[in-house]
């Protein structure tokens, strides 16, 4: 090869490298907070050694102070401890709901994209009906049928997000299926299953990783919303949405009761979203 071609190749590599190496301030903060969340989720006592359910009526309604960073609630429970111990639950709900939504989405989307026109038509009409309801309403319907609770809330959020994923997967699948490299594989004599396994599925599903990360933030917000409405985790449990709901009663006198759980919901959603975007950018430049 001529050295010019090699130079051109190097130039392209360099261009790709520049954005990959930089970590922005926002990304660094998101990464740090994500680390905190993971630690809090798996070993909550490491972050906050106290008992999230321990009542101490004498120190009820304390504003944030050096002893209780986030203040205390009406029963004197430390809000920081409760928020930290609630992380595991919230993350689990978010992750499981997203996994469920993505799983269903992959199933429906792959069926629609691969199994011919009749299946595609049926799945599409079904998705359109699902789209006609706002997601949260769909979730409420599920809860109405199966009764409130943390597990039901997870399933409800998962079901509510599935149609969106299914649509995206179907579109991605169709564009990958008709791409030149799939045709090239056909010309090389590959069978349909080999092509599906080796080329179509990886190229369809790789972008979903990003979508899933983005989805976790959304799922946590939704699950918290359900708990806030009293349809998710039940009150004494240290769940962010439930705590937010409990704090609402005292919002004028003890703002910290609602503020800190709310802050964590928002920060977690932002963290998941910005990490998702960061991964997306890196994949695009890779």
């Amino acid at each position, binding site marked *: *090869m*001529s*050295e*010019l*071609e*090699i*130079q*051109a*190749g190097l130039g*392209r*590599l360099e261009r*790709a490298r520049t954005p990959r190496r930089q970590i922005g301030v926002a990304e660094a903060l998101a990464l740090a907070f994500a680390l905190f969340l993971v630690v809090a989720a798996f070993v909550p006592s490491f972050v906050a050694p106290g008992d999230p359910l321990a009542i101490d009526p004498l120190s009820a309604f304390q504003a944030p102070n050096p002893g209780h960073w986030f203040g205390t609630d009406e029963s004197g429970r430390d809000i920081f401890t409760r928020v930290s111990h609630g992380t595991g639950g919230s993350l689990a709900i978010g992750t499981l709901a997203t996994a469920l939504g993505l799983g269903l989405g992959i199933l429906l989307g792959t069926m629609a994209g691969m199994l011919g026109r009749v299946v595609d038509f049926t799945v599409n009409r079904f998705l359109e009906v699902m789209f006609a309801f706002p997601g949260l309403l769909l979730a409420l319907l599920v809860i109405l049928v199966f009764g409130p609770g943390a597990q039901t809330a997870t399933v409800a959020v998962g079901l509510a997000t599935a149609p969106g994923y299914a649509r995206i997967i179907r579109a991605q699948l169709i564009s990958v299926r008709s*791409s*030149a*490299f799939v*045709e*090239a*594989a*056909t*010309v*090389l*004599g*590959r*069978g*349909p299953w*080999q092509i599906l396994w*080796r*080329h179509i599925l*990886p*190229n369809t599903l*790789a972008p979903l990783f990003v979508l899933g990360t983005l989805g976790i933030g959304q799922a946590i917000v939704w699950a918290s919303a359900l708990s806030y409405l009293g349809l998710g985790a039940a009150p004494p449990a240290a769940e962010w949405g439930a705590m937010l709901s409990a704090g609402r009663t005292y919002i004028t006198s003890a703002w910290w009761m609602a503020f800190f759980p709310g802050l964590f919901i928002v920060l977690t959603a932002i963290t998941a979203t910005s990490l998702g975007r960061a991964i997306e950018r890196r994949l695009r430049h890779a």
Partner: protein
Amino acid sequence: MSQGTHPVGHRSAAPGPLVSMLRVRDLTVGFGQPGENPVVSGLSFDIAPGECLALVGESGSGKSVTARSLIGLAGDTAWLEATELAINGNDVLGLTEGEWRRRRGRDVGLVLQDALVSLDPLRPIGREIADSLRLHTTLDRAARRERVQDVLKRVGLPDGRTRVRQRSGELSGGQRQRALIAAAIALDPPLLLVDEPTTALDVTVQAQILELLESLKARGTAILLISHDLAVVGRIADRIAVMSAGRIVEQGRTARLLAAPRQEQTRRMIAAIPVDKPRGTRLTAPPAEASPVVPVVALAAMPAPGEVVLETIGLVKNFRQPDGTVMSAVDGISFQLARGTTLGLVGESGSGKTTTARLLLALSRPDAGEVRVLGRPFSAASERERRRLRPELGAIYQDALSSFDPRLTVGAVLRDAVRGARRQARPWFAGDGPERPDLQVGRTASGDRARVLELLDQVSLPSALLSRRPLSLSGGQRQRVGIARALASDPQILVCDEPVSALDVTVQAQVLDLLDELQRERGLSLLVISHDLGVIQHVSDRVAVMLAGRIVETGPTEQVFGAPVHPYTRSLLAAVPRLA
């Protein structure tokens, strides 16, 4: 450096003109820290009014950077040095962005390379053209509209009233290029920079665009024409400057430079032009120690020469158009490809070449007619039966990059192909297909690796590329990987759909030589589809000319090119750019 009007220190066979529309002395451009990594260095040239200077070089030689620097568009990260840089006698060295903006379009026009992406797909072309008028003149709407129609007429797009409302998607490639030129000349700039104006255009359209540039030149416009193709610029350039690795290696009058090139790079570029080069002659210098004439041993060793390996019988493919009418993209095509020979299928865009290729590869089903491979039914067979024959039929695509799975490295692409070929070679799987025990060797991972390296070696690529992704390779390298992949199953037939049309002339020459070599070594039968008559003439034994889905003329290459019968063939041949 001389600051006067006489280019004293200028060592060129043709002294620069006394009056310069563009005057460049010691132009050096680079990216990054000033003084570091110059991409273009020490360029000096002049262009007089009504003169055309062609800047010719391979991609990466710095042509486009030069053109962009001359209109202040080299970019934020670029640095620029020159002892003199003057347009129409005005010093433009170190102009601010605002000052440049006032000059662009008025003093210098730029026609960009890719007409498809250089026009905003959502804006009517009339608006695009009127932009510069709105910015630089005080004309009112009506006057502007009149001016736009006038300019459109000048670039050969009459019927301006409907044209101005069309968007780039509604125009053909040639019309888009004309619209771009119209936008650049709307203000009658005395200097026009034209970057690869005819790449990707059909020969007849290409000839028309060159004529248009010629007419602008006759009106006194100074033109800097940038191209990788000497044959194209030879038609209109008065002088040619050959660039290589950021420097002008040779500069001189067109006739002199083409007839008696002094530099190695120039000679190489002239040699690379396939037009009128008989079949079998190399377009690139032969590798060291090899005899200049490649012995035709393999061909003689082939069994049953002349046997038909690929055949189409009355192939038809119709497409339903949005308005409900049926268009025949391919309308009854029959041809035969004999073993060890090359059949060239030539036609302009829209003539049904690519549809034919897809039918041949059984990527789409013909509405009538049949494709037969090695005497067996191919298009009529089921995909399961067809898979036994697929290893005999390799394919090379125009856009090699998109034919590779973007996740895979070069090594993985080739490994896939090798494994696939091995699997198909299993006798119990092959059924009644031709048995290929030769492909069963090396069932192990190390055997696969050896085969991959062998394939890379056959297309002269270093094994260091194995871990790279096709995206980071050059166009020529990508096409070589594509060829290596097609060879993995050791096919008897190669279908090449525009194999070199995305490549520079010099890289094109390397790929054409490679295909020729492979054909000799392995007795391959080639079907080459191209819009480029020069390429077709150079590679083909027989030629079939396509027009609107039909083959209008077919015969041995010498006959079709020497004594064309059909008027369409004649008009195509007349438009081929030649080094006269």
